[in-house]
């Protein structure tokens, strides 16, 4: 993916450029300290992905988005958590990274940017994959769990508790392992100890989410991603 970086702060541009350099698929074409210059460049060049700071003097990231036609995929990079809700009103925004940006979170954003293309072309396959079952080993028996029926997975020491519509299962495994097995389109890790099925959310209040009868904390770093998943009015 050909990308550009727009940020008025040199240190921020350097960090994003460094993170991009560790990802083979990313090719940084140019950096801009000023979004107006970036508009001109964007109109004349093939750009697939933009890392866009929102808070810039004179011409903000939102001004930039309103100026360009047919925007590519955008990853917002900002120090302001408060812009998340506004940012997700733009379909082109695939993720929202709060500075300081950590590599793991950055890679997740890149993965989302790549998947955004896939969703439009293989949406039927994606839907079919939701029918997949998950087999877990409990007392030497492999027990089938219907993935969409899972509403919560909770880490508990060396075990995880899988809560479904019908019953709960305690399995010797890690949150990371089950996270890899669950479809991103349904499940989200909202806290280091919890993965939720976003379709089962009842409500969100402050930094917690109500899912069935469980109130689950949402860590600050995952809140923006959770908001991204919601069909906000």
């Amino acid at each position, binding site marked *: 993916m050909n990308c550009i970086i727009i940020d008025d702060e*040199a*240190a921020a541009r350097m960090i994003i450029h*460094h993170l991009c350099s560790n990802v083979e698929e990313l090719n940084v074409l140019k950096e801009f300290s000023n979004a107006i210059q970036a508009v001109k460049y964007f109109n004349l060049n093939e750009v697939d992905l933009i890392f866009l700071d929102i808070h810039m003097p004179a011409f903000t990231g939102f001004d930039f988005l309103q100026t360009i036609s047919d925007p590519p995929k955008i990853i917002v990079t900002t*120090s302001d958590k408060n812009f998340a809700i506004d940012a997700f009103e733009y379909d082109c925004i695939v993720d929202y990274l709060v500075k*300081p940006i950590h590599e793991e979170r950055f890679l997740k954003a890149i993965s989302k940017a790549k998947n955004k293309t896939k969703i439009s072309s293989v949406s039927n396959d994606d839907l079919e994959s939701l029918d997949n079952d998950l087999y877990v080993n409990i007392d030497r028996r492999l027990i089938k769990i219907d993935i969409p029926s899972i509403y919560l997975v909770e880490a508990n020491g060396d075990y995880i508790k899988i809560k479904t519509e019908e019953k709960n299962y305690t399995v010797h495994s890690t949150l990371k392992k089950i996270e890899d097995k669950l479809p991103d389109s349904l499940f989200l890790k909202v806290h280091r100890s919890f993965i939720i099925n976003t379709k089962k959310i009842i409500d969100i209040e402050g930094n917690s989410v109500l899912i069935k009868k469980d109130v689950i904390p949402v860590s600050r770093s995952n809140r923006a991603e959770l908001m991204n998943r919601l069909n906000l009015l």
Partner: protein
Amino acid sequence: MERPSLVYIQTLSRGDKSFEEKIIKLIKTEFPKEVKKYFDALKRKKYLKAAEHVHKIRHKLSILGLKKSYELAEEYEHDLRKNKAKLEDEFNTILFSITNYINTL
């Protein structure tokens, strides 16, 4: 008072010393300029301008692992946008501490 550190930069660099040197050099150059602009704006009571400089400085605080100072700067920036500067002394103490730290790098 919490102390600045290079943990974030070192984690990010994954041992790439050239990147570490470049980013530290950049911070050493950018930070004093931003601080000077902030004080100039504050002296002229241009609070909105001062808030913009605090915004840039805030990112440096997070790069240097200063979580509490970052939160204070966030509140201070917010206040400055409303023409209030009640956290000025506390913020300036943070700037002084970072300036001293950066000079040792």
